[in-house]
Protein backbone atom coordinates (compact mmCIF):
# COMPACT_ATOMS: atom_id res chain seq x y z
CA UNK A 1 0.00 0.00 0.00
CA UNK A 2 1.27 3.37 -0.89
CA UNK A 3 1.63 5.73 1.97
CA UNK A 4 -0.33 8.99 1.81
CA UNK A 5 2.61 10.98 2.88
CA UNK A 6 6.19 10.52 2.19
CA UNK A 7 8.53 10.12 5.10
CA UNK A 8 9.71 13.69 4.68
CA UNK A 9 6.20 15.01 4.49
CA UNK A 10 5.25 12.98 7.57
CA UNK A 11 8.19 14.33 9.53
CA UNK A 12 7.41 17.91 8.52
CA UNK A 13 3.74 17.40 9.34
CA UNK A 14 4.72 16.02 12.73
CA UNK A 15 6.96 19.03 13.37
CA UNK A 16 4.28 21.45 12.23
CA UNK A 17 1.71 19.66 14.39
CA UNK A 18 4.02 19.77 17.38
CA UNK A 19 4.69 23.48 16.87
CA UNK A 20 1.01 24.21 16.41
CA UNK A 21 -0.07 22.28 19.47
CA UNK A 22 2.72 23.87 21.52
CA UNK A 23 1.74 27.30 20.37
CA UNK A 24 -1.89 26.56 21.10
CA UNK A 25 -1.02 25.32 24.55
CA UNK A 26 1.10 28.41 25.26
CA UNK A 27 -1.62 30.68 23.91
CA UNK A 28 -4.16 28.91 26.08
CA UNK A 29 -2.03 29.37 29.19
CA UNK A 30 -1.38 33.02 28.35
CA UNK A 31 -5.03 33.65 27.60
CA UNK A 32 -6.09 32.03 30.82
CA UNK A 33 -3.60 34.20 32.70
CA UNK A 34 -4.80 37.39 31.06
CA UNK A 35 -8.41 36.50 31.70
CA UNK A 36 -7.65 35.65 35.31
CA UNK A 37 -5.72 38.93 35.81
CA UNK A 38 -8.50 40.91 34.22
CA UNK A 39 -11.07 39.24 36.40
CA UNK A 40 -8.95 39.89 39.49
CA UNK A 41 -8.54 43.54 38.52
CA UNK A 42 -12.25 43.93 37.98
CA UNK A 43 -12.94 42.32 41.32
CA UNK A 44 -10.46 44.64 43.04
CA UNK A 45 -11.97 47.69 41.33
CA UNK A 46 -15.42 46.61 42.27
CA UNK A 47 -14.36 46.05 45.89
CA UNK A 48 -12.64 49.46 45.95
CA UNK A 49 -15.77 51.13 44.62
CA UNK A 50 -17.88 49.40 47.22
CA UNK A 51 -15.44 50.41 49.97
CA UNK A 52 -15.42 53.99 48.72
CA UNK A 53 -19.19 54.18 48.72
CA UNK A 54 -19.33 52.65 52.19
CA UNK A 55 -16.69 55.07 53.50
CA UNK A 56 -18.57 58.04 52.06
CA UNK A 57 -21.78 56.76 53.59
CA UNK A 58 -20.10 56.22 56.97
CA UNK A 59 -18.54 59.71 56.83
CA UNK A 60 -21.88 61.29 55.97
CA UNK A 61 -23.52 59.44 58.84
CA UNK A 62 -20.74 60.47 61.23
CA UNK A 63 -20.99 64.12 60.14
CA UNK A 64 -24.75 64.00 60.55
CA UNK A 65 -24.33 62.60 64.03
CA UNK A 66 -21.63 65.18 64.84
CA UNK A 67 -23.81 68.04 63.61
CA UNK A 68 -26.70 66.76 65.64
CA UNK A 69 -24.47 66.52 68.71
CA UNK A 70 -23.14 70.05 68.18
CA UNK A 71 -26.68 71.33 67.80
CA UNK A 72 -27.73 69.51 70.94
CA UNK A 73 -24.65 70.73 72.84
CA UNK A 74 -25.43 74.33 71.93
CA UNK A 75 -28.88 73.97 73.40
CA UNK A 76 -27.64 72.01 76.39
CA UNK A 77 -24.34 73.49 77.52
CA UNK A 78 -22.60 71.33 80.03
CA UNK A 79 -20.08 72.73 82.46
CA UNK A 80 -17.17 70.38 82.91
CA UNK A 81 -15.48 70.87 86.22
CA UNK A 82 -11.77 70.21 86.12
CA UNK A 83 -9.75 69.55 89.20
CA UNK A 84 -6.80 71.91 89.28
CA UNK A 85 -3.92 72.34 91.58
CA UNK A 86 -4.95 74.94 94.12
CA UNK A 87 -1.43 76.11 94.65
CA UNK A 88 -1.16 79.77 93.76
CA UNK A 89 1.58 82.32 94.03
CA UNK A 90 -0.87 85.22 94.04
CA UNK A 91 -1.58 86.01 97.66
CA UNK A 92 -5.11 86.86 98.65
CA UNK A 93 -4.02 90.26 99.93
CA UNK A 94 -2.29 91.08 96.63
CA UNK A 95 -5.32 90.06 94.61
CA UNK A 96 -7.56 92.11 96.85
CA UNK A 97 -5.27 95.11 96.49
CA UNK A 98 -5.18 94.81 92.68
CA UNK A 99 -8.96 94.50 92.38
CA UNK A 100 -10.13 96.65 95.23
CA UNK A 101 -12.77 99.32 94.56
CA UNK A 102 -11.11 102.27 92.89
CA UNK A 103 -8.50 100.19 91.06
CA UNK A 104 -10.01 101.26 87.72
CA UNK A 105 -10.84 104.81 88.73
CA UNK A 106 -9.18 107.28 86.39
CA UNK A 107 -8.18 110.81 87.26
CA UNK A 108 -5.14 112.38 88.84
CA UNK A 109 -6.92 113.92 91.77
CA UNK A 110 -9.72 111.50 92.34
CA UNK A 111 -7.76 109.27 94.67
CA UNK A 112 -4.75 109.93 96.83
CA UNK A 113 -2.70 107.30 95.09
CA UNK A 114 -3.41 108.64 91.63
CA UNK A 115 -2.65 112.19 92.63
CA UNK A 116 0.56 111.00 94.19
CA UNK A 117 1.24 109.34 90.87
CA UNK A 118 1.24 112.66 89.08
CA UNK A 119 3.07 114.55 91.76
CA UNK A 120 5.60 111.84 92.26
CA UNK A 121 6.11 111.80 88.54
CA UNK A 122 7.15 115.39 88.80
CA UNK A 123 9.38 114.59 91.69
CA UNK A 124 10.67 111.75 89.59
CA UNK A 125 11.86 114.19 86.99
CA UNK A 126 13.46 116.38 89.58
CA UNK A 127 14.91 113.47 91.45
CA UNK A 128 16.12 112.20 88.14
CA UNK A 129 18.04 115.36 87.46
CA UNK A 130 19.26 115.69 91.00
CA UNK A 131 20.26 112.08 91.12
CA UNK A 132 22.34 112.74 88.06
CA UNK A 133 24.50 114.96 90.20
CA UNK A 134 24.45 112.81 93.30
CA UNK A 135 25.09 109.62 91.42
CA UNK A 136 28.15 111.09 89.85
CA UNK A 137 30.23 110.70 92.99
CA UNK A 138 33.14 108.75 91.63
CA UNK A 139 34.22 105.84 93.76
CA UNK A 140 37.66 104.87 92.65
CA UNK A 141 37.58 101.30 93.83
CA UNK A 142 34.12 100.53 92.47
CA UNK A 143 33.84 99.26 88.89
CA UNK A 144 31.68 101.19 86.47
CA UNK A 145 28.06 100.12 86.70
CA UNK A 146 26.67 98.16 83.75
CA UNK A 147 24.82 100.21 81.17
CA UNK A 148 21.14 100.55 81.98
CA UNK A 149 18.76 98.34 80.01
CA UNK A 150 16.76 99.97 77.23
CA UNK A 151 13.52 101.54 78.43
CA UNK A 152 10.58 99.20 78.13
CA UNK A 153 8.00 100.27 75.56
CA UNK A 154 4.44 101.29 76.21
CA UNK A 155 2.54 100.83 72.97
CA UNK A 156 -0.74 99.57 71.70
CA UNK A 157 -0.59 95.80 71.63
Amino acid at each position, binding site marked *: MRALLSTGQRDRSRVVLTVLSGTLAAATVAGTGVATAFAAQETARSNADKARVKAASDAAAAKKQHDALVKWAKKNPVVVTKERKHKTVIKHVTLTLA*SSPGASTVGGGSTSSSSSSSSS*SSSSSSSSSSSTTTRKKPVASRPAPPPPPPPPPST*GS
Partner: protein
Amino acid sequence: MTTLTHEPATTATVDRESGASSWRALGTYVMLRTTPDAVQAATELAATVLDEVDVACSRFRDDSDLMRANAAAGTAVEVSRVLVGALRVALEAAAETDGLVDPLLGDVLRSAGYDRTFSLVPANDPTPTALPVRGGSWRQVVVTDTSVTVPPGAALDLGATGKAFAADLVALCIADTLDVPVLACVGGDIRLASPGDEPQDQPVLVGHSIADLEAGGPGTLVHLASGGLATSSVSARRWSRGGRQWHHLVDPRTNLPATGPWRTVTALGHTSAAANVASTASIVLGDAAYDWLVERQVAARLVDHDGTVTHTPAWTTSGIEENS
Protein backbone atom coordinates in the same frame (compact mmCIF):
# COMPACT_ATOMS: atom_id res chain seq x y z
CA MET B 1 -7.97 66.80 67.34
CA THR B 2 -6.95 69.88 69.31
CA THR B 3 -6.66 73.19 67.52
CA LEU B 4 -4.15 75.56 69.01
CA THR B 5 -5.89 78.89 69.54
CA HIS B 6 -3.74 80.45 72.22
CA GLU B 7 -0.09 81.37 72.23
CA PRO B 8 1.97 79.53 74.85
CA ALA B 9 4.36 81.62 76.93
CA THR B 10 7.98 81.68 75.81
CA THR B 11 11.11 81.26 77.86
CA ALA B 12 12.33 84.49 79.37
CA THR B 13 15.56 86.21 78.47
CA VAL B 14 17.12 87.43 81.72
CA ASP B 15 19.91 90.02 81.97
CA ARG B 16 21.31 89.62 85.48
CA GLU B 17 23.66 92.56 85.11
CA SER B 18 21.05 95.17 84.44
CA GLY B 19 18.06 93.57 86.17
CA ALA B 20 16.00 93.30 83.00
CA SER B 21 14.05 90.41 81.54
CA SER B 22 11.63 89.90 78.68
CA TRP B 23 9.47 87.14 77.23
CA ARG B 24 6.04 86.58 75.70
CA ALA B 25 2.91 85.62 77.61
CA LEU B 26 -0.83 86.26 77.27
CA GLY B 27 -0.18 86.63 73.53
CA THR B 28 1.93 89.76 73.97
CA TYR B 29 5.30 91.04 75.15
CA VAL B 30 6.26 91.10 78.81
CA MET B 31 9.16 92.98 80.39
CA LEU B 32 10.47 93.46 83.90
CA ARG B 33 12.90 95.97 85.35
CA THR B 34 14.10 95.34 88.89
CA THR B 35 17.31 94.94 90.86
CA PRO B 36 19.97 92.69 89.31
CA ASP B 37 19.97 90.41 92.36
CA ALA B 38 16.23 89.81 92.17
CA VAL B 39 15.62 89.66 88.45
CA GLN B 40 15.80 85.88 88.13
CA ALA B 41 13.38 85.22 90.99
CA ALA B 42 11.16 88.10 89.89
CA THR B 43 10.95 86.69 86.38
CA GLU B 44 10.03 83.23 87.62
CA LEU B 45 7.40 84.68 89.93
CA ALA B 46 5.98 86.88 87.17
CA ALA B 47 5.80 83.95 84.74
CA THR B 48 3.83 81.94 87.29
CA VAL B 49 1.47 84.83 87.99
CA LEU B 50 0.85 85.28 84.27
CA ASP B 51 0.19 81.54 83.91
CA GLU B 52 -2.47 81.86 86.57
CA VAL B 53 -3.98 84.86 84.82
CA ASP B 54 -3.95 82.99 81.51
CA VAL B 55 -5.72 79.92 82.84
CA ALA B 56 -8.30 82.14 84.54
CA CYS B 57 -8.93 84.88 81.97
CA SER B 58 -7.96 83.68 78.48
CA ARG B 59 -10.59 83.78 75.74
CA PHE B 60 -8.44 81.48 73.64
CA ARG B 61 -8.30 78.31 75.70
CA ASP B 62 -11.36 76.18 76.34
CA ASP B 63 -10.26 75.23 79.84
CA SER B 64 -10.02 78.78 81.16
CA ASP B 65 -12.44 79.94 83.81
CA LEU B 66 -13.63 82.71 81.51
CA MET B 67 -14.48 80.30 78.69
CA ARG B 68 -16.29 77.98 81.07
CA ALA B 69 -18.35 80.93 82.26
CA ASN B 70 -19.05 81.97 78.66
CA ALA B 71 -20.08 78.42 77.72
CA ALA B 72 -22.54 78.32 80.60
CA ALA B 73 -23.98 81.80 80.07
CA GLY B 74 -27.08 82.24 82.14
CA THR B 75 -25.90 80.08 85.03
CA ALA B 76 -23.47 80.69 87.87
CA VAL B 77 -20.09 79.07 87.32
CA GLU B 78 -17.54 78.53 90.05
CA VAL B 79 -14.32 80.28 89.06
CA SER B 80 -10.93 81.17 90.50
CA ARG B 81 -10.26 84.24 92.62
CA VAL B 82 -8.12 85.61 89.80
CA LEU B 83 -11.03 85.80 87.38
CA VAL B 84 -13.22 87.26 90.10
CA GLY B 85 -10.60 90.00 90.64
CA ALA B 86 -10.15 90.63 86.92
CA LEU B 87 -13.90 90.93 86.44
CA ARG B 88 -14.32 93.29 89.36
CA VAL B 89 -11.72 95.55 87.75
CA ALA B 90 -13.39 95.20 84.33
CA LEU B 91 -16.87 95.95 85.66
CA GLU B 92 -15.60 98.94 87.58
CA ALA B 93 -13.97 100.13 84.34
CA ALA B 94 -17.32 99.78 82.58
CA ALA B 95 -19.07 101.73 85.32
CA GLU B 96 -16.33 104.39 85.31
CA THR B 97 -16.73 104.92 81.56
CA ASP B 98 -20.49 104.37 81.34
CA GLY B 99 -19.88 101.26 79.30
CA LEU B 100 -17.26 102.59 76.89
CA VAL B 101 -14.79 100.02 78.21
CA ASP B 102 -17.04 96.99 78.00
CA PRO B 103 -16.09 93.45 79.10
CA LEU B 104 -18.98 91.87 77.14
CA LEU B 105 -17.58 92.23 73.63
CA GLY B 106 -16.53 88.58 73.32
CA ASP B 107 -19.12 87.66 70.71
CA VAL B 108 -18.45 90.79 68.66
CA LEU B 109 -14.73 90.06 68.44
CA ARG B 110 -15.36 86.38 67.74
CA SER B 111 -17.80 87.21 64.95
CA ALA B 112 -15.24 89.59 63.49
CA GLY B 113 -12.74 86.75 63.25
CA TYR B 114 -10.74 87.44 66.41
CA ASP B 115 -11.46 84.01 67.82
CA ARG B 116 -7.90 82.92 68.55
CA THR B 117 -4.71 84.51 69.80
CA PHE B 118 -3.98 87.44 67.54
CA SER B 119 -0.86 85.97 65.92
CA LEU B 120 -3.10 83.21 64.50
CA VAL B 121 -5.85 85.50 63.18
CA PRO B 122 -5.65 85.74 59.35
CA ALA B 123 -4.52 89.22 58.35
CA ASN B 124 -6.95 89.30 55.45
CA ASP B 125 -9.81 86.83 55.50
CA PRO B 126 -12.21 87.44 52.59
CA THR B 127 -14.90 85.24 54.13
CA PRO B 128 -18.08 87.31 54.26
CA THR B 129 -19.51 87.84 57.69
CA ALA B 130 -22.61 89.44 59.09
CA LEU B 131 -22.25 92.47 61.31
CA PRO B 132 -21.63 91.23 64.83
CA VAL B 133 -24.42 91.33 67.34
CA ARG B 134 -24.35 90.69 71.05
CA GLY B 135 -26.75 90.05 73.82
CA GLY B 136 -26.85 91.22 77.39
CA SER B 137 -25.27 94.14 79.15
CA TRP B 138 -22.22 94.37 81.37
CA ARG B 139 -24.62 95.49 84.11
CA GLN B 140 -26.11 91.98 84.08
CA VAL B 141 -22.82 90.23 84.84
CA VAL B 142 -23.00 88.83 88.36
CA VAL B 143 -19.77 88.29 90.29
CA THR B 144 -19.54 86.79 93.76
CA ASP B 145 -16.42 85.83 95.68
CA THR B 146 -16.39 82.42 94.02
CA SER B 147 -18.60 82.52 90.93
CA VAL B 148 -19.48 84.41 87.79
CA THR B 149 -22.74 84.53 85.85
CA VAL B 150 -22.58 85.76 82.26
CA PRO B 151 -25.86 87.07 80.82
CA PRO B 152 -27.51 84.69 78.32
CA GLY B 153 -26.41 85.35 74.74
CA ALA B 154 -23.31 87.26 75.79
CA ALA B 155 -19.62 86.45 76.13
CA LEU B 156 -16.89 87.99 78.26
CA ASP B 157 -13.66 89.34 76.82
CA LEU B 158 -11.08 90.96 79.09
CA GLY B 159 -8.91 92.23 76.24
CA ALA B 160 -9.29 95.82 77.41
CA THR B 161 -8.37 95.61 81.08
CA GLY B 162 -6.97 92.09 81.37
CA LYS B 163 -3.34 92.84 80.55
CA ALA B 164 -3.32 95.94 82.73
CA PHE B 165 -4.74 93.93 85.62
CA ALA B 166 -2.02 91.35 84.97
CA ALA B 167 0.67 94.06 85.11
CA ASP B 168 -0.75 95.27 88.41
CA LEU B 169 -0.74 91.75 89.82
CA VAL B 170 2.80 91.00 88.66
CA ALA B 171 4.26 94.21 90.08
CA LEU B 172 2.44 93.93 93.40
CA CYS B 173 3.39 90.26 93.80
CA ILE B 174 7.07 90.93 93.14
CA ALA B 175 7.29 93.97 95.40
CA ASP B 176 5.48 92.14 98.19
CA THR B 177 7.20 88.76 97.89
CA LEU B 178 10.76 89.80 97.01
CA ASP B 179 10.76 93.20 98.70
CA VAL B 180 12.28 94.97 95.69
CA PRO B 181 11.18 97.81 93.41
CA VAL B 182 9.89 96.65 90.05
CA LEU B 183 8.45 97.82 86.77
CA ALA B 184 6.15 95.28 85.11
CA CYS B 185 5.13 95.74 81.49
CA VAL B 186 2.48 93.46 79.96
CA GLY B 187 1.79 94.37 76.35
CA GLY B 188 2.56 98.04 76.99
CA ASP B 189 0.46 98.29 80.16
CA ILE B 190 2.93 99.27 82.84
CA ARG B 191 2.86 99.17 86.62
CA LEU B 192 5.49 100.26 89.10
CA ALA B 193 5.53 98.92 92.63
CA SER B 194 8.05 99.05 95.44
CA PRO B 195 8.25 98.30 99.15
CA GLY B 196 6.74 101.20 101.04
CA ASP B 197 5.65 102.75 97.74
CA GLU B 198 9.01 104.43 97.40
CA PRO B 199 9.07 106.44 94.15
CA GLN B 200 11.29 105.15 91.36
CA ASP B 201 12.68 106.70 88.24
CA GLN B 202 11.86 104.35 85.39
CA PRO B 203 12.20 105.47 81.78
CA VAL B 204 9.54 104.19 79.38
CA LEU B 205 9.43 104.61 75.62
CA VAL B 206 5.94 105.51 74.41
CA GLY B 207 5.03 104.63 70.82
CA HIS B 208 2.21 103.56 68.55
CA SER B 209 3.07 99.87 68.37
CA ILE B 210 6.08 97.61 68.75
CA ALA B 211 6.22 97.12 64.99
CA ASP B 212 6.16 100.88 64.48
CA LEU B 213 8.94 101.46 67.02
CA GLU B 214 11.04 98.70 65.46
CA ALA B 215 10.54 100.29 62.05
CA GLY B 216 11.95 103.57 63.37
CA GLY B 217 8.62 105.17 64.17
CA PRO B 218 8.41 108.02 66.69
CA GLY B 219 8.96 107.23 70.35
CA THR B 220 8.71 109.55 73.32
CA LEU B 221 10.68 108.95 76.48
CA VAL B 222 8.81 109.46 79.72
CA HIS B 223 9.86 108.90 83.33
CA LEU B 224 7.62 107.17 85.81
CA ALA B 225 7.86 107.33 89.56
CA SER B 226 4.94 105.16 90.65
CA GLY B 227 1.55 103.91 89.59
CA GLY B 228 0.70 102.88 86.07
CA LEU B 229 0.96 103.93 82.47
CA ALA B 230 -0.94 102.49 79.52
CA THR B 231 -1.09 103.08 75.80
CA SER B 232 -3.97 102.19 73.48
CA SER B 233 -3.59 102.42 69.75
CA VAL B 234 -5.61 101.56 66.69
CA SER B 235 -2.28 100.79 65.00
CA ALA B 236 -2.01 97.48 66.82
CA ARG B 237 -3.97 94.26 66.27
CA ARG B 238 -5.48 95.11 62.93
CA TRP B 239 -7.03 92.58 60.55
CA SER B 240 -9.46 92.45 57.68
CA ARG B 241 -12.55 90.23 57.64
CA GLY B 242 -15.05 90.11 54.77
CA GLY B 243 -13.67 93.32 53.32
CA ARG B 244 -14.02 95.27 56.59
CA GLN B 245 -10.96 96.61 58.37
CA TRP B 246 -10.95 95.73 62.07
CA HIS B 247 -8.84 96.59 65.08
CA HIS B 248 -9.22 95.37 68.63
CA LEU B 249 -10.64 98.58 70.11
CA VAL B 250 -14.36 98.13 69.58
CA ASP B 251 -16.91 100.84 70.25
CA PRO B 252 -19.64 99.09 72.25
CA ARG B 253 -22.17 101.66 71.02
CA THR B 254 -21.80 100.41 67.45
CA ASN B 255 -20.14 97.00 67.87
CA LEU B 256 -17.66 98.16 65.24
CA PRO B 257 -14.03 99.27 65.43
CA ALA B 258 -13.71 102.65 67.14
CA THR B 259 -13.38 105.52 64.70
CA GLY B 260 -12.19 108.91 65.71
CA PRO B 261 -9.31 111.30 65.48
CA TRP B 262 -6.92 109.47 67.82
CA ARG B 263 -4.41 106.95 66.62
CA THR B 264 -2.74 106.45 69.99
CA VAL B 265 -3.52 107.57 73.52
CA THR B 266 -1.19 107.18 76.50
CA ALA B 267 -2.43 107.84 80.03
CA LEU B 268 -1.18 107.79 83.57
CA GLY B 269 -3.09 106.22 86.42
CA HIS B 270 -2.62 105.20 89.99
CA THR B 271 -2.76 101.61 88.70
CA SER B 272 -2.11 100.12 85.30
CA ALA B 273 -5.80 99.26 85.06
CA ALA B 274 -6.78 102.87 85.75
CA ALA B 275 -4.36 104.09 83.09
CA ASN B 276 -5.69 101.54 80.60
CA VAL B 277 -9.29 102.53 81.26
CA ALA B 278 -8.41 106.14 80.45
CA SER B 279 -6.48 105.33 77.27
CA THR B 280 -9.05 102.83 75.96
CA ALA B 281 -12.02 105.07 76.72
CA SER B 282 -10.28 107.97 74.97
CA ILE B 283 -9.88 106.01 71.74
CA VAL B 284 -13.55 105.02 71.85
CA LEU B 285 -14.74 108.51 72.79
CA GLY B 286 -12.96 110.14 69.87
CA ASP B 287 -13.53 113.88 69.72
CA ALA B 288 -15.00 113.99 73.21
CA ALA B 289 -11.94 112.36 74.77
CA TYR B 290 -9.95 115.49 75.57
CA ASP B 291 -12.71 117.11 77.64
CA TRP B 292 -13.45 113.76 79.31
CA LEU B 293 -9.81 113.42 80.34
CA VAL B 294 -9.46 117.02 81.50
CA GLU B 295 -12.63 116.79 83.54
CA ARG B 296 -11.15 113.81 85.38
CA GLN B 297 -7.69 115.39 85.65
CA VAL B 298 -6.08 112.51 83.80
CA ALA B 299 -2.53 112.99 82.62
CA ALA B 300 -2.73 111.87 79.00
CA ARG B 301 -0.98 112.24 75.67
CA LEU B 302 -3.12 111.94 72.54
CA VAL B 303 -1.72 111.49 69.05
CA ASP B 304 -4.06 111.92 66.09
CA HIS B 305 -3.83 110.17 62.74
CA ASP B 306 -1.74 113.01 61.33
CA GLY B 307 0.81 112.71 64.13
CA THR B 308 -0.26 115.87 65.95
CA VAL B 309 0.25 115.47 69.69
CA THR B 310 -2.13 116.88 72.29
CA HIS B 311 -1.36 116.85 76.01
CA THR B 312 -3.85 117.26 78.81
CA PRO B 313 -2.86 119.88 81.38
CA ALA B 314 -2.19 117.15 83.94
CA TRP B 315 0.31 115.53 81.58
CA THR B 316 2.09 118.80 80.94
CA THR B 317 2.34 119.74 84.61
CA SER B 318 3.44 116.26 85.66
CA GLY B 319 6.68 116.84 83.81
CA ILE B 320 7.11 113.17 83.03
CA GLU B 321 7.91 113.68 79.39
CA GLU B 322 11.57 114.03 78.65
CA ASN B 323 12.23 116.97 76.38
CA SER B 324 14.17 115.91 73.34
